[in-house]
């Protein structure tokens, strides 16, 4: 696949009501803020919030779907900047910022339906 600087791609995921519970089972992250809406309200989050690493996995999926091969993702990083609530819709927009040797650097913008960036400084590297 020929990847060029400036190329863009996108994806989105609907966070269904039970997503944090499925993710808890698969990842082992059973922190009550993710699986117990009452607990989430008690600590001021307004309900249960999705595990940040699940949001990062959605972002990684958008990159590997675009690259066509999950093994081509060589690096991904992010800052967790705002909570993702259940029943949110997450949008992911990627852009190739640079290509050095056999690595494409990708900047990602990850937002919830309100426009708020839920991840920041999201950068990935893909083998080209």
């Amino acid at each position, binding site marked *: 696949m020929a990847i060029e600087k400036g190329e863009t791609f996108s994806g989105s995921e609907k966070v269904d009501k039970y997503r944090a519970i499925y993710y808890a089972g*698969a990842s082992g992250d059973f922190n009550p803020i993710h699986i117990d809406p009452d607990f989430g309200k008690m600590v001021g989050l307004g309900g249960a919030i999705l595990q940040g*690493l699940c949001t990062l996995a959605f972002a990684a*999926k958008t990159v590997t779907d675009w690259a066509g*091969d999950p093994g081509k993702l*060589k690096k991904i990083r992010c800052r967790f900047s705002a909570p993702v609530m259940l029943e949110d819709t997450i949008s992911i927009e990627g852009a190739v910022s640079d290509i050095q040797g056999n690595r494409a650097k990708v900047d990602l913008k990850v937002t919830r339906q309100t426009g708020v960036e839920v991840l920041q400084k999201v950068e990935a590297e893909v083998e080209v």
Partner: protein
Amino acid sequence: MAIDTKFIGKEYPSYTYDVSKDKIKEYAKAIKNQDPHFMDEAFAKKSKYGAIIAPPTFAVVFGAYLIEPIFLDSELNLNMAMLVHGEQEFEFFEVVKAGDAITTTAKISDIRNKEKLDVITIEGISKNQHGRSVCRGLYTFVVRK
């Protein structure tokens, strides 16, 4: 109370995680990623990897076995009620395949004390049964004071 910076460099016992195709599928479904590399054995056998592979971020599954003992470390004594995940970085090397045995070692790579919060970074290095690197993870947690 601030996290003591003397714990920078503290290492934790390694853990070897056996990767199964069923756990890969469970994780892939949880992250809504039904890529045939993870889900379809016939496809995976014909792929360049020759087997079911794990999504890159499956690293959280074996990484969790190293993070939990650090959260429970009574000497380090993190205030879990005030802890949030601040940043995450993964570097991926060889792909993880079903049937691999992944050994991860972790250490505290950084602690920074700020006015209102402490920042602690844990580095996990994971290798497969051939001794080849599969992942380096940097987990950064913020503990409000």
